[in-house]
């Protein structure tokens, strides 16, 4: 399975990618939403995108809207991974088309639990 990790913090990209790779994912990284779209435009379409909210150039919400307006990317699951924690923001992200929402700080178990809910836990990672 493939995952695209989009976050302007290199450390955070490494943490999220590390968790996903530990579960059996092949990952790529992008520093903001526009870079994320660039990756998708190469034809490398992931099963999952983990997306931060506040980033330069293109933020996470704009990325979600751009992906959702493209029918070719309909099967891609989007999980926001962000420190934005207000009720209204979660509602906005879900309305824009995100499937799940993880609030920073999080543990590896939190990512794993959410992937299990989404049916995106690679088979070998299921206990």
């Amino acid at each position, binding site marked *: 399975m493939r995952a695209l990790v989009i976050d302007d913090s290199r450390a955070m990209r490494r943490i999220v990618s590390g968790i996903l790779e530990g579960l059996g994912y092949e990952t790529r990284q992008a520093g903001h939403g526009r870079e994320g779209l660039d990756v998708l435009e190469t034809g490398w379409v992931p099963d999952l995108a983990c997306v931060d909210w506040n980033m330069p150039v293109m933020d996470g919400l704009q990325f979600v809207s751009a992906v959702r307006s493209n029918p070719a990317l309909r099967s891609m699951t989007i999980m926001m991974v962000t420190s934005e924690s207000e*009720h209204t923001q979660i*509602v906005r992200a*879900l309305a824009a088309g995100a499937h*799940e929402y993880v*609030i920073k*700080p999080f*543990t590896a178990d939190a990512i794993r639990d*959410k992937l*299990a*809910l989404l049916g995106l836990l690679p088979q070998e990672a299921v206990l």
Partner: protein
Amino acid sequence: MTLTTTSFDWVRQLVHRESAIVLQPGKEYLVEARLLPIARQAGLADVSQFVESVRSRPSPDDTRAIVEALTTNETSWFRDGDPFTALTSTVLPALLAARGPNERLQIWSAACSSGQEAYTIGMLLEDALPNAASRVSITATDISREMVQRTRAGRFSQLEVNRGLPAPMLVRHFVRAGNEWEVAPQLRRMVTASECNLAAPLPRMGPFDVVYLRNVLIYFDLPTKQAILRRVRDLMRPDGWLFLGAAETTLGVDDSWERVVVGRSSAYRPLKGK
């Protein structure tokens, strides 16, 4: 200083006497990890000193704190989700067909820890059933007073809501309360929490249509498992449904249950005439 054999044995006997939970030899690390915060709170440097001080002068508060620390377990929303899917896909329709329109369904989350299981059941029912609050009551019990208080409060940290609670359900059933999330009032009204030691005679409750007794029996020896299953059965409706943990079964423990497959899960139903 590491935990001495004498201290470990004393803790084992205390926990077994008070909760019937069996701490096998080799679980010294668990005792140390769980009791260290209490030892530090008491101003002592390590667990051995703490256990020795309680052993020499036992007080109800200290012994309760030890038992609680060793009998509470990690929990998360939708933990092992299949028994929840079974509730809405099979059990709820069957119960609604069998009961009158004014009969209230009673569900028991036994060993509820901090309440995630009870509120998960409540959220599913609210989403599946119009007027769920007037049709269903959920009883949540735990041996730990602290866990019962936490369940009643219905407040969860950010880290806790991150653990397997689907975001759409978070926004539908919770409100933000400072740095925490609080269960919405109508959901909280469905859940009543109280203290209950499953290894002792049970209080008058029920009769229950559905019982979630998951990841509890694994901690007990065979005679206690049998006694718990008998007491639970006495509090259930004859056509009720019991869910155990994925690694648990009544087979070879108590033959008065019928195992039925419900989707990807198993439920146990009281056998008639037993």
